Every structure is written in structure tokens, then in C-alpha cells.
């Protein structure tokens, strides 16, 4: 009798709900894949399963993780943002320039966020309010922002001359000498985003808009504003990634972030987010990013030629998406 079972569910509360959510999002398969990847490379290389290497990978993956989580939000709301790679390069310029002048990391970060949010707002306005296809808008801003970066910098990296220890630490040092700060920062922010998407009304509305913009509109949501905010989120996440990267590089490097849009979309889709919108979770994206990062790192550890990384990454993505869509097709 469903009624009694439903009351049971209510009583047992979160535990069963959580289990159901996990099962429903096929995140278990991703966790298993991640464990298999780690196990295989641990057997293949003695250096792989060390605290040093594991934490290294977390630090390295942190930038893509931030960017991919942001892109995932746009995909969940039924759009896409491929301008993120250019945003990564652009926001480092005010960050470094302001720090060099003011010696204040806070002001630098605010400057970076201001630029990032501006780009995000342009994307969001054109998509949500002008109703231009998101792929085209963000392809356009990808070109425009990258070109503006080249134009402004004269294609020279802008070095950090403020030498703030805190800024160096942000991208390069480790908490208690173990956990890289970028991993910590990305972890906290992405955890917050996971929480927002699961437990805040706003997050649920993003899913609703992606699931059916019409239903969302009937429920009284301002679909355009929600989409607009999604682009702000994606730009913010790319900005945070850009800040961490700038710290790791000690400079605003004009070529940084090229091609990140493809890596991010690949990781997001691998993590189970649907291109059609409304389906997927940020936690899945975390797993997708980690799988790709550990595969890349592991291949490096066994000294496989760099080009195999690309070939294998491509194969992993096709296999994952094909399995998923064939599974759905059979239903």
C-alpha cells in the first residue's frame, strides 16, 4: 500500500531519500568508475597512490572543477556557456593589475569578480532577454573576450609584482602541508553550489526551468531572470577558477584557459548532466572532473605519451555518453 510506505519514507527522512537520489542520478556508476581508475593506476605506478600525488591531482583539478560546475548550472537551466575559457584569462588582468597597484588581494579579487560578472551579465542578457541562442552568444563572447585580452595586454603576460604571500599561498600552498588550497577553495565553493542546487529554492527553480521552461513559467517563476542568474553563476565560477589559476601562475597569462570550454563540457556531460536541461547534479560533475583528472594524471605517471591522454579522454567521453543514451533509448 503506497500510502503506508509513503509515511514510512517521511519518517525515515533523509537517509533513504539520499540513497534514492544517488541511485537515481547514476552517480554510483561514476563513483565505481573513479575507484576503478584509481585502482588500475595504483597498480601501474608506485607514485600514483601517494598522498602527494592524490592531493596534487585535487589541486590540479580544482580549476576545471570550478569552471565545469558553473557550466553545469547553465546546462541544467537548459542553456550553455562556452565563453568560460576566455573569462578565465580576462579576469586575471584586473586581478593582477589592481594587486600590483593597491597591494590588496581583496581589491584584486573584487576587480576580477566585477569583470567576470560583467561578462556573465552580457551573456545572460543576450540569451535570456534578447533570446539569442546561448551557444552562439557565448561563442561570440569567447572570441570577443579573448581578442580583448590580447588587445589589452599586447599579448604579454602581466606579472604579479605585488608578491603578496597570501596570493601566492592561495594557489600554491597546502593546508597543514597536505591539502592544496585551490582544492580547499574549489571544494568549499562547489560544495556550496551543490547545496544551493539541492536545497535552495533558487537551485530547484533552475532545475525546473531546465526541465520545462513552460511549466516553470506557469508556476510563476521569472524564467528569464533565472537564466540570467545562471550565466552570472557560470561567469563567477569561471572567475574563481581564473583567480586560482592566476595565483598558480603568478601572472595574468593571456593564453590561459584556451580550450577549457571543451574540457568543461566534456566533464559535465561525463558527470551525467543532460544537454537537454533539467537533469544532472553538480556532485556528478565533481566525479566527472575527477575521473578525467585522475586518468590524465595516471597516464602521466606511467609515462604514457601525452597524446594518448587526449585519445583516451575522447574515448572515455564517447563511451560514457553512448552507454547513457543507449540505456535511455532502451527504456
Amino acid at each position, binding site marked *: *500500500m*503506497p*500510502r503506508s*510506505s*509513503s*509515511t514510512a*519514507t*517521511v519518517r525515515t*527522512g*533523509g537517509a*533513504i*531519500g539520499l540513497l*534514492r537520489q544517488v541511485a*537515481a542520478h547514476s552517480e554510483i556508476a561514476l563513483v565505481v568508475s573513479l575507484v576503478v581508475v584509481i585502482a588500475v593506476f595504483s597498480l601501474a605506478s608506485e607514485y600514483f597512490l601517494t598522498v602527494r600525488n592524490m592531493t596534487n591531482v585535487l589541486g590540479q583539478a580544482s580549476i576545471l572543477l570550478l569552471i565545469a560546475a558553473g557550466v553545469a548550472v547553465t546546462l541544467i537551466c537548459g542553456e550553455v556557456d562556452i565563453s568560460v575559457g576566455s573569462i578565465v584569462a580576462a579576469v586575471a588582468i584586473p586581478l593582477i593589475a589592481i594587486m600590483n597597484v593597491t597591494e590588496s588581494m581583496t581589491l584584486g579579487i573584487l576587480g576580477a569578480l566585477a569583470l567576470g560578472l560583467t561578462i556573465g551579465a552580457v551573456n545572460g542578457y543576450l540569451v535570456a532577454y534578447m533570446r539569442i541562442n546561448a551557444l552562439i552568444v557565448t561563442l561570440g563572447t569567447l572570441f570577443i573576450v579573448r581578442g580583448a585580452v590580447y588587445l589589452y595586454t599586447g599579448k604579454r603576460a602581466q606579472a604579479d609584482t605585488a608578491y603578496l604571500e597570501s596570493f601566492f599561498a592561495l594557489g600554491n600552498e597546502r593546508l597543514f602541508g597536505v591539502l592544496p588550497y585551490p582544492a580547499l577553495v574549489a571544494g568549499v565553493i562547489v560544495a556550496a553550489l551543490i547545496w544551493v542546487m539541492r*536545497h*535552495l*529554492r*533558487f537551485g*530547484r527553480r533552475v*532545475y*525546473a526551468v531546465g*526541465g*520545462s521552461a*513552460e*511549466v*516553470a*513559467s*506557469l*508556476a*510563476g*517563476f521569472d524564467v528569464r531572470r533565472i537564466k540570467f542568474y545562471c550565466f552570472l553563476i557560470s561567469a563567477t565560477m569561471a572567475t574563481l577558477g581564473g583567480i586560482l589559476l592566476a595565483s598558480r601562475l603568478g601572472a595574468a597569462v593571456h593564453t590561459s584557459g584556451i580550450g577549457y570550454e571543451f574540457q568543461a563540457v566534456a566533464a559535465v556531460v561525463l558527470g551525467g548532466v543532460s544537454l537537454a536541461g*533539467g*537533469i544532472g547534479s553538480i556532485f556528478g560533475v565533481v566525479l566527472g572532473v575527477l575521473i578525467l583528472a585522475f586518468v590524465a594524471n595516471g597516464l602521466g605517471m606511467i609515462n604514457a605519451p601525452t597524446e594518448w591522454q587526449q585519445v583516451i579522454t575522447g574515448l572515455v567521453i564517447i563511451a560514457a555518453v553512448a552507454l547513457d543514451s543507449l540505456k535511455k533509448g532502451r527504456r
Partner: protein
Amino acid sequence: MVEDLATPEAPQTGDTDAARPTLRVQGLTKRFPGVLALDDVSLEVRGGEVLALLGENGAGKSTLIKLLAGVYRPDGGTIETGGVERHFASPADGLAAGIKVVFQEIALIEEFTVAENIFLEDHLAGRFGRVAWDEIRRRAAEIFDRAGFDIDPEVKVKDLSISQQQLVEISRALAHEAKIVIMDEPTSSLTPAEVRHLFGVIERLKAMGIAIIYVSHKLEEIFEIADTCVVLRDGKWVSTRPTAEHDHASLIKDMVGREITDLFPRSDRPLGDTVVEVRGLSTATGLSDIDFDVRAGEVVGFFGLMGAGRTELAKAIVGYDPILSGEIRIAGTQLTPHDTRRGKALGIGLLSEDRKGEGLMLEASVTRNMTLAALDKFTARGFVDAAAERAQAQSFVDRFRIKLARLDQPIGTLSGGNQQKALLSRWLMFGLRTIVLDEPTRGIDVGAKAEIFALIDELAADGFAVILMTSEMPELLGLSDRIFVLSGGRITGSFDTETATQEAILDAAIK
């Protein structure tokens, strides 16, 4: 019950005083470019009353509903609930004013759980917009308990049947203390058992003092459930009378404005050879062990309720879907399943129920839509002869009296009936001999319906084998020579039209 469901903090503005209408609509008018969709319509409904809103397609029912829901804004007239004049900027305003519309296209987020959908509008969010999951689950279960719905609040909506999804929509009304629930063709997708259950639910809503506007064109239902009937025609109000003062004929007369006599012509249809033979057909889409034959020159009707397998059968026998077992022979040759090219070569084709999704190329011209299947006829060495194509299209436009301005206008700009005639031309131009028609008159106004019925009769008289999938009893009885009834993917009854009764057919359909 009303008291039970009310949350303490919600002030009781709408009084249940029967003298005062819960909803009062006066002089409501809505204009679209070139069309006066709703013209000065007034009505009232009280708590505990079921008001049936009737009219043919295009009568203005859905415009009225959308105005009440806050989807559209009126060009004139007023809407009052609880004695207060309301101006809706969005559907949320409608709901806030106590009006909940259960649309035919269920407005739920499929990937969300039932409970989350019930509280979709606000997620019972507390401070900082935090979703109150436990509260949502608790309140959903509570609503289901009190309304007597058998639904697990934790299940995703996509895993529910249509009727269960409707109950979820109704639960949303209860969750929002709606005083007026509007149901738009709620039974069009339900099994008879589900219809009975829905009527029970409506009785309970009445008992709670909720006013119900029930939109339907199924007269049997109206007589069973409605207290009052409001009839619209061509956007205008026609009549408001207690149901008790109506009979079938009077309702139809109000709706149509004239007596329709010769809706279903029946020419002499000489029977030819057997052209369709289906044996032991089972599919992954739920059909099992289907057997039937169709001969040239006859119309074989398949009746079934929603989910009975009509569309699935249609798609299997033209080679659209794969099959699990069994065989399909067209004109004596075995059809390769899941290969429409083969089906077409054997002369069988489907006119889909889903015009937009599976029939029309909306932005393409009328000509190109009409000639799609027959393209090879106009092709020589890979080149399409545009002049021949146009000439052929024009001849069909003339023959079927398709109303259009130019042959190269986008087909999306035609009315539903003209679109349907163009799609039928697509197959006739190709020279099909066996045609499967799946709900051929869905969403088409009554005049165009009559033309399409005449066409179907003409086809059969010309020696076509016609397979008609329908959920409309009059259409089934009016057109078919023989009738099969589908239920749960099986054939549960077969009849000759002369001896068939509506009761027997329905009985088979709910087996």
C-alpha cells in the same frame, strides 16, 4: 475538510457563503491579431458547484481558462474572486487569488518528486530561500492522506501515470488553498476506472466548498458531474443553464449552432483483397499478440482509451517501431519492422496523431510539406522538378479545398484542419493504398472534421484500406466497417459496426 486543510496563518478571505460567487467573470474579452478569441463573456461559479464549460474547438474555452489562470491578460472585462477584482500579471497571481488550473498538458516537472511538484511555487522555503524538504514531504503526504490519493510523494513524476499526475496537479490546488479548480479536458487521457476515481475526487472537492470549472466535450460526463452548463461558441457566450434543463440535443445545438445531420457519409465500399495481415504482433512498446486483417475498401476502426496501445499499433504496422515477435504482411509481402522505407514501398503509411511533432515541417512551405513523401515522383536524376511539384500540390489544394494564400507560405500559418488535409495529401500524392489514421481529427474544428470524414469515406470507396485509430466513439461508429477494441496492448473485442453497441465497446475497452 476545509478547516483541516487550511493552515492557521492563512486568513480566510473567501467566505463560503453560497450567496456570493467564488468567481465572477464579467464582460471578459481577449483579442489576438486578426481574431477576437473571446468576446464579452460573463459567468459565475460558487463554492461547491461544478460548472461545465462547453464548446467546440475554437469556441474560446482555452482562451477563457488562460485568462483565468493569468497566462493571458484580458483586453476587457473583469475577474473577481472572493468579491475582489483581480488583475493577474502571471499564473502565480492566479494561484495566489485562489485559482488553480489543471491543464490538459500536465504542468509538472517530470524529473522532480511528487512532493516537490506540489510545492513547486514556493518550495515552502524559509529564510534565505532554503527548501523545507521535510515539511514538503510531510505536507504532501498529509494532503494525499486527506484527499485519499494513493501516491508516494517521494516518487518522480515521470514514473506516474497521467491520471496520477492529474491528482498531483489537484493536490497542488489543495496545497495552495485554491478556491477554484479549473480542469481542462481532464478525462481525455484516463481509463474509465480512473475517470470514476476522478469523479470521486471532484465530489470531495465539492464537499470542501471548492468551486470547479470542468471543461469537456464529453456530454456523458457533463450530465453526470456538472451542476451548471456554460456554452461558448466562436468566442461568444451562448447559454448558461442548469444541467438538469439540458439534454444531449439541446447541448449540441448550443455548441454547434445547428443540427449536424450528415456528419458521417457512407458511400458504397466494394470490398477487395486482404491487404494487411497482422499475426501475433508483440512489441517493446506494450503490444502483445495482436492479430487482424484489413481488406481493400474497408475502414477498420481501432478503439482504445489512452494507453491502450493505439498509437503503438499504428507505429508498429507501418514499420516505424521495432517489433519483438509476430509478422506483418502488406499486400502479401512481409514488412521489415523498424524500416519505414520498406513500409512505404509496400504502400502503407501513417498519418500521425502528433501533427506538430511528427507530421509538419512548420517553417517549410505548404508545397514542400505536401510533396515530402512523394518526392521521388518529381525527381529525375536527383533533381526535383519544382514546377511539377507545385502543379501537383495545387491540384490537391483544389481537390481538398485547402484554404491558403500562397502555396509557398509556411504550413505553420494554416489552420489545424487545413494542415491535416495537407498531410493527408502527402500520402495520397505518393500513391499509398493502405493508410493508418491516428486520431485524424484531433484539434480540428467541427466543420473541417466533417470534411475529413467525407474524405475518409471517399478513400475507402476508392479501394483504399483504411485503419482508423480513435478514442472518439461517434467517429468510430460513424466511419468504421469493423471495429477492434484495444486495451492494455491487446485486442479485447471485435465487432461489426451494425451490431456494435457503445456499451459493449466500452466494456471491452476497460477489460
